[in-house]
């Protein structure tokens, strides 16, 4: 599978391997990290951002691709809808079928609410399902929520909203317990001790995992629980606009059947946006590890209704995306591979950094290696890459470790004849996570009454970078939180008349600002069908 040039470079990796075992790799100093990020991290490429001309974040910069959607026209701009023809009438409407949406639905249902989930693909077609490495929680004897806070706050460049991060770390152990009690199969010792490892930027081993199917195991359990509770799921249906009532409070959503194009009206006393991330917008042309529907839809809906976004200018580029072969270009190679001993090595066989720096710093360092330093390996995917030395794991952690600890990775590479136990793999950063998103309060509510948000669609919990394992934690903690809040709030709500006036108002703002980008949003799905050239 590897090209002759790659094989020649592998020989250098093999030649240096023995000397690298046990050799202490220095971590970057605070100043080195700062310099790396400023010079090489994609968030700092000013020319890749536009200034928003309208809406609550007017004057702030966001990636071009996001700006086009936030400043885009509504899908229902020229559609006549009768809001009095109500197809669904519920207490809590959850938009999104991933881990935060499912957690929210379960808790709202447990609180007695009439809950409905709507998702544009199927429940579980979500980034939650693809999270591989694990979930953090400070439950070990030598650990504490304060220590977890310090790691996450520093890793996020001291930009997290303190009260949100406090909740994330303090509720962490209970989130693990909740999942365990639902039947999630965590990796444990025979006596029940949780097996935990490091992630990039952690100072304690607090990464809980379910092999490298951590997100899948959690998501399929949550999905099963939603089904067992018989919570209705309207799938292959997207929310294309929020509906407010005449008092400016959330009152439902306009839904669209993804297959027939038919519109439906959902009335709801409370609405929870749990629509996830934006990797399929391919910022700066990066490949992505995200699922097919990651197109920032919830951000567009909330923004148009007047909710501000927190840190919409920052994304996480996962340092180890698969860079070869072409068929898996951009797919995630879990950080767990480094957590269990995989080393980052350049074309010359040199270990160029400590493998467990935070993701943003690691990504910047890989980009430097492949650009300025000229020590990348060229790939046919149109770029260069560095090695992740995986055979090293089998040497230092014992034969069989890879199949036991990262079976999905092993399976993915074996499809293409690469045995990562024998040969290293090629990696390069891939667009992985939306650090920013909808601004929320501690109870998951937003600036619009009765509108809540949870999961990757939210910004501010992690700051300007997120540690591995804090996203799975976030979707559980804040998904449940939003579900509980909505499940308590709906009881006292008397909805006013439903209206889409905010959509018309926003269109007027577009006109007034002279914006003519021609984009329609939310995007719903990326356009991958090849258009035949005439």
């Amino acid at each position, binding site marked *: 599978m590897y090209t002759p040039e790659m094989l020649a470079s592998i020989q250098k990796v093999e030649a240096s391997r023995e000397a690298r075992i046990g050799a202490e790799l220095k971590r970057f100093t605070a100043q080195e990290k700062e310099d790396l990020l400023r010079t090489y991290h994609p968030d700092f490429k000013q020319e890749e951002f536009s200034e928003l001309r309208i809406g609550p974040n007017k004057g702030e910069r966001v990636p071009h691709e996001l700006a086009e959607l936030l400043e885009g026209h509504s899908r229902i701009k020229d559609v006549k809808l009768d809001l009095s023809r109500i197809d669904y009438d519920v207490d809590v409407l959850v938009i999104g079928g991933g881990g935060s949406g499912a957690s929210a639905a379960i808790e709202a249902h447990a609180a007695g609410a009439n809950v409905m989930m709507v998702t544009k693909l199927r429940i579980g077609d979500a980034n939650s399902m*693809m999270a591989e490495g694990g979930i953090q929680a400070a439950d070990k004897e030598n650990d504490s929520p304060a220590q977890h806070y310090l790691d996450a706050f520093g890793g996020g460049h001291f930009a997290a909203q303190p009260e949100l991060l406090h909740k994330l770390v303090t509720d962490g152990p209970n989130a693990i317990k909740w999942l365990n009690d639902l039947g999630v199969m965590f990796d444990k010792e025979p006596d029940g001790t949780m097996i935990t490892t490091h992630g990039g930027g952690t100072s304690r081993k607090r990464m809980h995992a379910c092999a490298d199917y951590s997100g899948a195991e959690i998501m399929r359990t949550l999905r099963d629980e939603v089904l067992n509770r018989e919570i209705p799921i309207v799938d292959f249906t997207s929310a294309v606009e929020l509906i407010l009532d005449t008092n400016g409070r959330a009152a439902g959503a306009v839904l669209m059947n993804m297959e027939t194009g038919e519109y439906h009206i959902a009335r709801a006393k409370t609405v929870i946006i749990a629509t996830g991330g934006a990797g399929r917008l391919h910022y700066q042309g990066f490949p992505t590890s995200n699922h097919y529907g990651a197109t920032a839809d919830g951000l567009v809906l909330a923004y148009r209704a007047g909710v501000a976004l927190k840190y919409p200018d920052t994304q996480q580029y996962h340092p180890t995306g698969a860079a070869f072969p072409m068929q898996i270009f951009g797919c995630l190679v879990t950080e767990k591979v480094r957590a269990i001993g995989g080393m980052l090595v350049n074309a010359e066989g040199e270990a160029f950094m400590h493998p467990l720096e935070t993701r943003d710093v690691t990504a910047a360092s890989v980009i430097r290696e492949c650009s300025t330093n000229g020590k990348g390996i060229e790939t046919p995917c149109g770029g260069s890459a560095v090695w992740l030395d995986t055979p090293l794991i089998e040497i230092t952690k014992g034969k069989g470790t890879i199949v036991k600890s990262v079976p999905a990775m092993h399976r993915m590479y074996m499809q293409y004849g690469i045995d990562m136990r024998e040969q290293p793999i090629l990696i390069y950063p891939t667009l992985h996570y939306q650090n920013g998103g909808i601004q929320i309060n501690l109870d998951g509510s937003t600036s619009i009454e009765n509108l809540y948000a949870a999961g990757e669609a939210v910004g501010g919990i992690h700051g300007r970078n997120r540690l591995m394992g804090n996203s799975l934690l976030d979707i559980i903690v804040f998904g449940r939180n939003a579900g509980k809040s909505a499940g308590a709030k709906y009881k006292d709500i008397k909805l006013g008349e439903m209206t889409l006036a905010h959509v018309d108002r926003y269109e007027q703002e577009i006109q007034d600002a002279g914006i003519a980008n021609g984009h329609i949003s939310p995007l719903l799905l990326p356009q*991958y069908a090849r258009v035949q050239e005439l």
Partner: protein
Amino acid sequence: METMVNVFLFGKKYEVPESATIMTAMEYAGYQLVRSCGCRCGFCGACATIYRVKGDRELKVALACQTQVVDNMYIATLPFFPLNKQIVDINGVRPDDRIMMQLYPEIYSCIGCNACTKSCAQELKVMQYIAFAQRAEYAKCAHESFDCVMCGICSSRCPAGISHPQVGLLARRLYGKYIAAPSEQLEKRVAEIEHGDFETLISELMNRPIEEIRELYNTREIEE
């Protein structure tokens, strides 16, 4: 110029790049996918696909996102398969001998044809984990079925009408909740937090000036 191959999507011929997966071949052919496409990385099971290479006697099944095309591949996606999912109150069941018999009695109709195992996109020993379920060996069933993405291919090939992914899922939840030993340290920590034991520590940290927090972060001790 990239080498091209012929594939037959639902019987219709298209020329696509040899390097394509079944999924990207469909997109190259002009399909804007809505169904049969989820995570695109082999985790969600949305893209179960049946194919036969012309002249081959064997019918094959795969995940479209994880499988490269070959010349003369006849392809049909399986966008949905009606699995039998029984409603279970996880708090109301126990991992006893009867539970599978009550909920999924069809597992005892297995005729041992092994079509499920042969068809599994994840190369799991599906018939084996069903056999464990028959014998109420839920721990073994849970581990053997662990990598299941619930694509439903196995069930589509089963003459006994077994919904293998649902059986595996129930076994895993029973194992995770009831059979695996509980973590005492986790329970202890949850109780400590509920008791407010860590609140002083964390609020002291949060109330420090940012420069002090920065210094603490940069000099923190990292567990070996």
